């Protein structure tokens, strides 16, 4: 069984990457939140698997924290938010979806190329997945840029944090616990603030279209 652990971790890594791509091409916001939840679940599975294989209890806690935050609490909060805000569809993106996919592929190649020399030096058994983690971060970043509504931007931000936690897990078998707690706290507070903001934006502009937030420009 232990022999299969690196392959299983690679499998979860590929799943996370796949879900990142799925999130880029997804139009419906409800499904977007579900995809984000699945990504969190895959991340938790990878952490726990690595914890089992390397006998490090810290990773169990890290996985549990991710589970509580990214799989249970934040998706629940986001679902409630979109119900209250009554947003369902994000019809247009800044660039059309096939072009987004192509740019995504370019980002993936870039990330893999960047991370290849570094991942060879990693001690962790999941070291090869550093490139995948970086690719997920870049894809989430692109999602934040190309979306015109507030909720997908927030989900892109959260997905980027997912990618970073995954990078920490695969490159170094997790960061010290206090840092992980700090990061989790920051993410939680960040999402809460963003949630409040979305209500404010909705109140002011009667819509969550980010295009309304472009009045401050250089003259």
């Amino acid at each position: 069984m232990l022999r299969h652990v690196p392959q299983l971790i690679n499998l979860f890594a590929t799943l996370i990457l796949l879900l990142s791509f799925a999130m880029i091409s997804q139009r419906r916001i409800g499904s977007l939140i579900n995809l984000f939840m699945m990504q969190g679940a895959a991340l938790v599975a990878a952490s726990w698997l690595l914890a089992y294989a390397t006998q490090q209890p810290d990773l169990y806690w890290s996985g549990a924290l991710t589970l509580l935050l990214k799989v249970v609490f934040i998706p629940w909060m986001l679902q409630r938010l979109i119900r209250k805000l009554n947003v369902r569809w994000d019809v247009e993106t800044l660039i059309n979806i096939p072009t987004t996919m192509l740019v995504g592929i370019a980002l993936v190649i870039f990330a893999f190329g960047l991370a290849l020399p570094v991942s060879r030096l990693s001690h962790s058994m999941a070291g090869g997945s550093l490139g995948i983690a970086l690719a997920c971060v870049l894809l989430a970043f692109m999602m934040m840029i190309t979306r015109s509504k507030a909720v997908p931007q927030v989900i892109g931000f959260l997905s980027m944090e997912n990618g970073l936690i995954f990078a920490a897990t695969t490159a170094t078998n997790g960061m010290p616990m206090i840092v992980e707690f700090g990061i989790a706290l920051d993410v939680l507070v960040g999402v809460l603030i963003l949630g409040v903001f979305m209500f404010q934006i909705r109140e002011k502009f009667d819509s969550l279209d980010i295009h309304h937030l472009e009045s401050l420009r250089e003259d």
Partner: protein
Amino acid sequence: MNALFFVLGIPLLGSLVLALFGHRSFARDVNVLFSLLSFLAACVLTVQVINNGPAWYWSRQFYIDPLNVFLVTLTAFVSLSTAIFSRPYMLIEQDHGKMTPPRMRLYHSMYQLFGFTMLLGFTTNNLGLLWVAMEAATLTTVLLVSVYRTAASLEAAWKYFILCGVGIAQALFGTILLYMAAERVLGPENATLLWTNLNDIKAQLDPTIVTLAFVFLLIGYGTKVGLVPLHSWLPDAHAEGPTPVSAVLSGLLLNVAMYAVLRCKVLTDGALGTAMAGHIMMGFGLLSVTVAAFFLSRQKDVKRMFAYSSIEHMGLITFAFGMGTPVANFAGLLHMTVHSLVKSAIFFTVGHATQKAGTQMMSEIRGLIKVNPTVGWGLMIGVMAILGMPPFGVFASEFLILTTAMREQPWAAPFLFLALVVAFASILVRVLPMVFGDTELKPLAHPPALIPVFAHLLLALVLGLYIPPYLNGWYVQASKMLGS
């Protein structure tokens, strides 16, 4: 119960207290009180460091050395003076109807919490906690920028959050990579992320990993410093938030981010042995200076203009640290100090000027000297100071930077010089009509607090003429450490 406990604990306590009572009439005074107490604690800490040298606290998790001791005191001081300035300013804002009681509570408690996160960022020895503090500082300032709840401020705060969130995430990736490089030498424990430990073994860190890490760290923390092209949050955040917030953003937050970059640069230089980190920083710095000067000349909103001035000065500081010679490092540290003091003083006066005129457009503010001589003179002197007039400190540091540039990187000196001249001309052309000229503005309802302004300017003047020996000693030691 050592001094550091008080330095960190008082703002935290203040934030909790003001979260409950921040809307009462005495809240503004309580805010000043807490800032005063933390400033005193910072002074005590400084005295301890003067007497005993660099120190660790709490099992080496916190570290005070020549690089951050004066920054801690500076932060506490500017927090105090901004709190004093904010007393009448926010009262007037409340009278104008721009602030409601719940938002005052939010404002005051976030103000103290922001102070806490900055002090945490300066004093922590743990690179991971440094990141957490930077992110927390971002979150608190996002809430502070949006406190007026206007459409423009929401937009500014949203953009700020998204851009800085992305930037900070890159910095986290850089931190992870740094941890990975460190783990290979020190093993996977909490002590591996301590900067002092990393500094001891920096020659053994793998160059490939550290190169990649530094790039991400520079991009990440550089977003918060305001380096072009990652700067677009800065003008909006400065223009749309309350003026005390603009003052602390320019004066303090940019410094923390710069400090984070410097800590990482020391490790990178040690690991790589080449000057690559310095070269990248010089590139970004030069780009920031020139682009900011160009944008500055086209601004019509006074706070945006000074925001671009902040970008320009931070670019200059980055360039100085990028050059890396002891003189350039010294100049950079001096510039960080005086820029913080002078820029916040300018924002204090600009804040009252905009309150009087009811607008931030420079074309509609006139004749400050006639209506309120202190505000007018404060702005005039502050602008003179920031533009590099002798004998203020900014002149000394800019002079040192330019001469070092002419010696070390002669190709860059013309750009720097040109940018500084363009900024000089643009700002002067716009400020002179604001200060002099005829006007129909009426005086403010409550007397503005202008002691902070003149205190800052006086300090900047003093630093231009005479640097106290212990401060000089710290600058020299820090420069040596940065250049090694």
